[in-house]
């Protein structure tokens, strides 16, 4: 398809992730643009707050697989990503920052396209929203269009962006974090880019920045084991490791244990033996158990208890956990 396919009022190219009958907002991220910068995430949150329930927000990356963004402060708002450089080509926005609204019938209803780092003129933006609010658009489309304008604000860099959101020039949430930068973390076999402050722990990077919420935050001080992941094949408390420290390490989380729908034997054993009640400590218990078995610390019940003692279960599901580890150790 040719670039001129992106015309408001025309049928949009077909794409992966489109839900028939739903309005979709596509945000195109060029390679060298970081959608996970906290200031921009704040703008997405603003935009998402005004999205109607049925609208569908989709990120499109053009080269590297970006992490799935979790822009929710409250509630399960997700920002799924598709990696498809052909899609950018099809929409004619290759290498550019763009926001496109496609209505339930598959018609392009609004578009903003700009160069990387460029900032759309606020007045033009407002005008485009007005134009989009023309008769013939459904109420849903209208709302989404307005939301898309908010989303496009995310493209405003730095000060202009903060001012547009009414935060003044000081930036979102006070002083800009010192030394924030984008790092690459190897998680479950995938290299993922993520923007972090030096204070960000591996746990927070996984949960808050990469959408990998399987790893749990219990005490956040290395006392409960809920955050246990494997770093270079060894179990570790992810709440006590800085994300920047882990650059270059191989991280495995609970999401990386199963092969597709085939659960890891330890996961299966936990289900079979009721190794949990509320389930909150379970990902940490399972990661620890996998390591415990690999280390060979499963000689008898006492040895398993001792080598699983770094994982606290407030529900007291210890008998089930012990039984699960024992059984999985024989497989």
């Amino acid at each position, binding site marked *: 398809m040719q670039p001129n396919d992106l015309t408001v009022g025309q049928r949009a190219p077909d794409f992966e992730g489109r839900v028939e009958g739903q309005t979709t907002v596509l945000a195109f991220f060029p390679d060298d643009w970081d959608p996970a910068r906290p200031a921009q995430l704040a703008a997405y949150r603003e935009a998402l707050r005004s999205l109607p329930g049925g609208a569908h927000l989709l990120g499109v990356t053009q080269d590297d697989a970006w992490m799935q963004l979790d822009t929710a402060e409250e509630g399960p708002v997700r920002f799924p990503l598709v990696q498809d450089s052909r899609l950018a080509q099809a929409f004619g926005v290759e290498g550019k920052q763009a926001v496109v609204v496609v209505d339930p019938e598959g018609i392009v209803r609004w578009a903003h396209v700009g160069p990387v780092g460029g900032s759309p003129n606020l007045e033009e933006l407002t005008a485009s929203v007005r134009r989009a609010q023309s008769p013939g658009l459904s109420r849903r489309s209208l709302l989404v269009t307005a939301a898309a304008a908010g989303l496009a604000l995310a493209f405003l860099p730095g000060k202009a962006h903060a001012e547009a959101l009414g935060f003044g020039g000081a930036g979102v949430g006070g*002083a800009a*974090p*010192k*030394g924030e930068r984008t790092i690459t973390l190897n998680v479950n076999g995938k290299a993922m880019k993520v923007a972090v*402050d*030096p*204070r960000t*722990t591996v746990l927070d990077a996984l949960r808050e920045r990469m959408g990998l919420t399987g790893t749990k935050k219990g005490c*956040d*001080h*290395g006392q409960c*084991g809920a955050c*246990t992941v494997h*770093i270079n094949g*060894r*179990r*570790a*408390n992810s709440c*006590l*490791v*800085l994300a*920047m*420290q882990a*650059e270059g390490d191989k991280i495995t989380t609970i999401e990386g244990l199963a092969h597709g729908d085939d659960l890891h034997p330890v996961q299966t054993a936990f289900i079979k033996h009721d190794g949990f009640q509320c389930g909150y400590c379970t990902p940490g218990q399972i990661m*620890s158990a996998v*390591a*415990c078995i690999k*280390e060979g*610390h499963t000689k008898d019940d006492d040895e398993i*208890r*001792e*080598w699983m*003692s*770094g*994982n606290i279960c407030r529900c007291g599901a210890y008998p089930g956990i012990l039984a699960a580890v024992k059984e999985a150790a024989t497989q």
Partner: protein
Amino acid sequence: MNPFEYKRAGSVGEAIREGQPVGAKFLGGGTNLIDLMKYDVEEHDKLVDVTRLPLAKTTESEGGLMVGALVKNSDLAQDPRVLGRYGVVSKAILQGASPQLRNLATTGGNLLQRTRCYYFYDTALPCNKREPGSGCGAVGGFNRIHAILGQSDQCIATHPSDMAVAMRVLDAVVMVEGPKGKRSIPIADFHRLPGDTPQIDTNLQHGELITGVMLPSAAAHTKGTYVKVRDRQSYAFALVSVAAIVDATGKFRLALGGVAHKPWRAEKAEAYLAGKPMTKENFRAAAEAELADAKGYEHNAFKIELAKRTIVRALTEVS
């Protein structure tokens, strides 16, 4: 946590250079430092990550086994040379923390752990160690886990490490490197008693990096034990612990944990035992001698008798 700069050091020289400014701090496994920074007990402007330095090997050297500062606790505990000749170190480490913490914690960092005194951790309460001159919440407060030996009016905190107690019984030597070059500090002189400066835990100077710990040949042993008494069977700090070995000359050596601001070498007990038959009565008398000057507080006086009994048990195990 206060905002800080993160710097990953690529060489020992670079680490030391980066670690010089006031406000810079070396970051190892982070299991204590990150914890303390999250509570705002410690604030640093810059963390110099030393975990990638080539200090993670244990090598035979003249005089003993040289343990690199970045050897993980879990690796040290299962090193065959440690298991064979310095068993007390392995036993102590494996009774501390949890497997996942031991996978992060380093040899050097373990020595530099700070006290787990509740008042030190609670920034709303006075603590002379955290804020010199503010007072001690523990002396008249909940002091169940506190010191019975070597304490001062200023501070009754204990050193939390198990590994350090084992290293104290071995007379290990801490190797350090700083802007003025290298030096070695016998572990006896490494940790300090609180006195009037409880804010200073060790004699390591700012900007000095621990590069390794030497376990001396003279302390190699086949009989060694670490008896740790705690409120739960696993994953808890010691109320009282005792490291005991019979060294190469046949001498009984003892060190205590959980009772003082530093790993406490039981020199009085050792002196009492010299040349005497190894009987329960002599063990008890040695323990009495060691604890003669002990002082308990409202909630920890039980530790005095507990320490005596733990000494007897440890000596019985190695005799």
